[in-house]
C-alpha cells in the first residue's frame, strides 16, 4: 500500500499544480490598462483542429495565422491567436467558447467553423457582446436573428441550395439526379434542400448516403442508374468527391459529379468533368489575389488549400480591422468591437467590398459555380 500512498501523493501534487496553474492564469491576465493600449489582444479561433474534420480547421488556422502575421507587420499591431480546438464536438466547443468569454484579452472570435459549434456558442458570445465571425458555417438558421453577435463572411445554404438546383436543372438540363449526403450536420440539410428543390422542378431524384468514415463508395455508385445525368454530393471532404467521381468512371457511368462547397479543392477534387459550387470566388483565378497566394505559399509549406482557408483569412481580417478601429476611437470593449464589426466595409480578397447585413450575413451574396474539366477549374456562373 506504500505504492498506493505515493501514487496518491503524486496525483495530489499534479492536481494541485494543474488547478493552481489554471486558476492563477486568468487572474494575472485581467489587466484592462494593457488592453486600452491594444497591446495584448487575442483573437480566438474556434474550430476543429483534431478529429475527422481536422484538415478543415488546420487549413483555416494556417490562413488565420498567416493573416494575423501579415496584418501585424503592416499595421504595427501585436494581435495574437488563441486556439480553441472543438474536436468537431459541440460540448468541447461550448467549453472553449466559455474560455474565450472568460479571457478578457479575447476581443473577437474567428469561428465557429462548424455550424454545431455556432449553435452551442452563439448565446454565450451574445451575452458577452463578443463578436464571432465564421469563415465556413453555412447552416441557414444561424443568421435568423437568434445570435446577435454572429457574423459570417460566407453566404448560407439557403443561397447555395437553390443556386445548385437552378444550375443542375436549367443549365445542365438534368432529368435524373442522385443526391448523396455524408451524414453530418453540414451535409444532410443541404442535401435535403437540394433534393426538394430538384423535385419541385420535376427532376427525378434518388437519395443515397455514405458515412463520414467510408473510403469506398463503389456500392453506392452501383446504385446510380445508367440514365442518371448528375450526381450531387454534399460533402465536406474534397477527396471523397474525387473518389466518387473516380468510381463512377471506373464503373463506366456517364453521370457528372456536382460537389458542394466542401468539395472545392483544385488539388484534391480533380474529376475529368465535374462541377463544384463554392461560396467565394477562388483567389487562384483572381489576378489581384495572386500576390496573396504567392505570399501564403511562402508562409506555409502545405500548399494544398480549398476555399475554407481564404474565407477564414477574410474573417480574421474583419476581426482585426474592427479591433483596430475600436482601439482608434479609444473604446476598447467587446461591445465596441462588435459594433465596428457590424459596420465592416473592407476590400474583399474575393473582389468587391465586404459588408454585413443586419443579421450578420455577407452582402452581396452569391455562390460561384466552377466547371472542372480534366482537373482544371474555370468559373461558369
Amino acid at each position, binding site marked *: *500500500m*506504500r*505504492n*498506493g*500512498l*505515493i*501514487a*496518491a501523493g*503524486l*496525483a495530489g501534487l*499534479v*492536481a494541485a*499544480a*494543474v*488547478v493552481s496553474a*489554471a*486558476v492563477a*492564469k*486568468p487572474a494575472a491576465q485581467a489587466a484592462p490598462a494593457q488592453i486600452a493600449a491594444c497591446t495584448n489582444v487575442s483573437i480566438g479561433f474556434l474550430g476543429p*483542429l*483534431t478529429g475527422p474534420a*481536422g484538415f478543415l480547421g*488546420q487549413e483555416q*488556422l*494556417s490562413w488565420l*495565422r498567416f493573416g494575423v502575421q501579415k496584418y501585424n507587420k503592416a499595421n504595427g499591431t501585436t494581435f495574437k491567436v*488563441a*486556439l*480553441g*480546438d472543438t*474536436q*468537431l*464536438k*459541440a*460540448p468541447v466547443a461550448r*467549453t*472553449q467558447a*466559455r*474560455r474565450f*468569454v*472568460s*479571457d478578457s484579452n479575447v476581443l473577437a472570435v474567428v469561428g465557429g467553423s462548424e*455550424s*454545431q459549434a455556432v*449553435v*452551442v456558442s452563439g*448565446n454565450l458570445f451574445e451575452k458577452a457582446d463578443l463578436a464571432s465571425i465564421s469563415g465556413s458555417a453555412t*447552416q441557414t438558421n444561424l443568421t435568423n436573428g437568434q445570435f446577435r453577435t454572429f457574423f459570417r463572411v460566407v453566404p448560407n445554404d439557403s443561397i447555395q441550395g437553390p443556386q445548385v438546383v437552378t444550375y443542375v436543372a436549367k443549365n445542365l438540363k438534368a432529368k435524373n439526379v442522385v443526391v448523396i449526403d455524408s*451524414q*453530418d*450536420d453540414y*451535409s*444532410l*440539410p443541404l442535401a435535403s434542400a437540394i433534393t426538394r428543390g430538384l423535385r419541385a422542378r420535376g427532376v427525378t431524384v434518388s437519395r443515397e*448516403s455514405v*458515412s463520414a468514415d467510408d473510403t469506398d463508395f463503389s456500392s453506392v455508385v452501383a446504385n446510380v442508374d445508367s440514365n442518371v445525368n448528375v450526381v450531387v454530393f454534399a460533402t465536406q471532404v474534397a477527396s471523397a468527391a474525387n473518389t466518387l467521381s473516380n468510381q463512377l468512371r471506373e464503373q463506366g457511368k456517364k453521370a457528372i459529379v456536382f460537389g458542394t462547397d466542401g468539395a472545392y479543392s483544385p488539388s484534391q477534387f480533380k474529376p475529368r468533368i465535374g462541377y463544384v459550387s463554392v461560396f467565394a470566388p477562388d483567389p487562384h483565378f483572381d489576378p489581384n489575389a495572386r500576390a496573396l497566394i504567392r505570399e501564403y505559399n511562402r*508562409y*506555409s*509549406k*502545405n500548399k494544398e488549400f480549398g476555399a475554407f482557408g481564404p474565407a477564414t483569412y477574410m474573417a480574421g481580417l474583419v476581426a482585426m480591422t474592427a479591433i483596430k478601429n475600436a482601439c482608434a476611437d479609444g473604446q476598447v470593449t467587446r461591445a465596441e468591437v462588435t459594433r465596428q464589426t457590424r459596420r465592416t466595409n473592407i476590400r474583399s480578397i474575393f473582389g468587391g467590398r465586404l459588408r454585413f447585413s443586419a443579421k450578420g450575413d455577407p452582402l452581396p451574396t452569391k455562390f460561384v459555380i466552377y466547371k472542372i474539366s480534366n482537373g482544371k477549374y474555370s468559373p461558369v456562373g
Partner: protein
Amino acid sequence: MSEHQSPSPERPRIGVDEWVASAEQRRERTVAGRIEDAVERAPAAAKLVVFALPFAIFPLFTDSEYLTQVGIDTLIYVLLALGLNVVVGWVGLLDLGFVAFFGLGAYLYAALASEYAGRHWEAQFVVPLIAVAVAATGFLVGLPSRRLVGDYLAIVTLFFLQIWLVVLINAEFTRGPNGISDIYPLKLFGREIVSPGGYYYVTFAAFVLVVAFLYLLNRSRTGRAWNALRDDELAAELMTMPVNRLKLMAFAVGAAIAGVAGALYAPQQGAVFPANFDIVLLITVYAMVVLGGAGSIVGVTVGAVLINSSLEALRDPDDASWLFYVAIVLGLVLFMRPRWVPLVVLAGTAAFGLVVHELAEQLRPSLVAGSTFGTARVDEVLDSWVLLPEGAIGQDGLPAGALARIAYVGLVAAILGLTLIRNRVWRAVALVPVLYLGACVWENVLVAQPAVARFVLIGAMLVALMALRPQGLLGRQRVEIV
C-alpha cells in the same frame, strides 16, 4: 519499491497464506499503514465530507465562467467514470458501449424538456425517470452478456454503440446530425437554473448522491458478490451466486449513472448532437477509470479530475510546456532511487543540452536558428538550450522537413529502447540524451500542435500505465490465481 528497502519478513514467502494473514500486523508497523488504518476506521459520513469538500469549495475560488464550465465538465466525467467503474472495476465486464447510455440520458432529457418535444417537465421527475429508463436499457443490452465471455461482450457492446450512433445520425425523430438544439434549462421545483454556477452545484449534488449510493452498494451483499464474481466467476457460480443476474444488475447500475450524467448534461449544454457520444469519449472515460484505479471510488474520481484538467491545461502551448517539464521532473524525483539519482540525471541533461547546443552552433548554425513556439518566460531559457532548427515546423504547425518527423519517430524508438535496458546505471546514463531529445521534440513538434499532442500523450500514458501499474494510482493490486 518495498522489495529493496524492507527486510525479508515483508516479502511474500513460501506459505503465502501466512503472509496474507499477517497483513494486519505488517500494516501496523509502518506510518502509511497506520494512516490507512485511521482512514478506514473513520465514519463513512466524515469520509464523504472530506472527499466532497474540494469540489464543494472549488467555485468559491474562481469567478471565471470558463473554470466553472471546466468544473461542470469534470463532474460529468467523474459521474461517467463512477458509472463505468461499476461495470469494469467492480464486476470486471468490458463494456465498450458505455457512452451510448450517456447519450441516451441526454436525448431522453431532450425528449422530455425541449421546444422540439413541446414539453418542459421538471427535473425532480425527469432525472429519476431517466435513471430508471436507462437502467432498463442497460439491462436489455446486458442480456447478451449472459452468453458472452470477455472479449465477445466487448465487441457486442461496441456494436451496440455503433448501432446507436447510426440510428441517431439517420433517424428523423432525432433530427440527425443537427441534433436537438433547443433544450430547455433544468427546472427544479419551479425554478429554472440558468447560470453555470447553478449547474455546477446541481451536478455536484448528483455526484454526492451517487458516491454515497455507490459506497453503500459496494459494502452491501450485492457489492461483495460482484467482487467475488470479478475475481473468479467460476468459483462464484459454485458458491451458488446468481452470476447472470449479478452481471445484468451491474450493467443496469452503470447505465443508470451514465443516464443521470446525460440528463444533467443536456440542459447545461442546451443542445445534444450524435457526435458527442463517440469512441474518443469512450477512450477518455476508460483512461480516467484506469488511471485512477479501477474499483476504487476515490481512484476513479481522482483519475477523472486529473485527466480532464490536464487535457484542458494542455490546450494552451504555454501551460502545456509547464505541465510537460513539471511532470518530467516530478516523475523522475518520485520514481528514481536513491534520491540523488534524479538530480544527477537532470543536471546531466542540462549540461548535455548546453554542450550539444554549443556544438551545433559552431558546426551547423542552421540547427539552432529557430525560436521556440511559446511565449512564456521559460522559453527564453529554452532558446539557448534545445536544438531549434529554422523552419523545422512550418508556420502552420506541421513538420516541414523530414528532420522533425525523424526526431519524433526516433524519440518514440528511444523511449521504447530505454525500457529494454536492465542495468540501472546504464539506464540512468541513457536517460540523459533521451530526455534532451524529448525536450527538442516537444519544443519543435508537439508544442505547435497542442490539440493533437495531448491525445498522443493520453495514448502513451494508457500504454505505460498498463505496463507499469495496471491497478492504477489508487487501485488495489489483484492477485490473479492461475
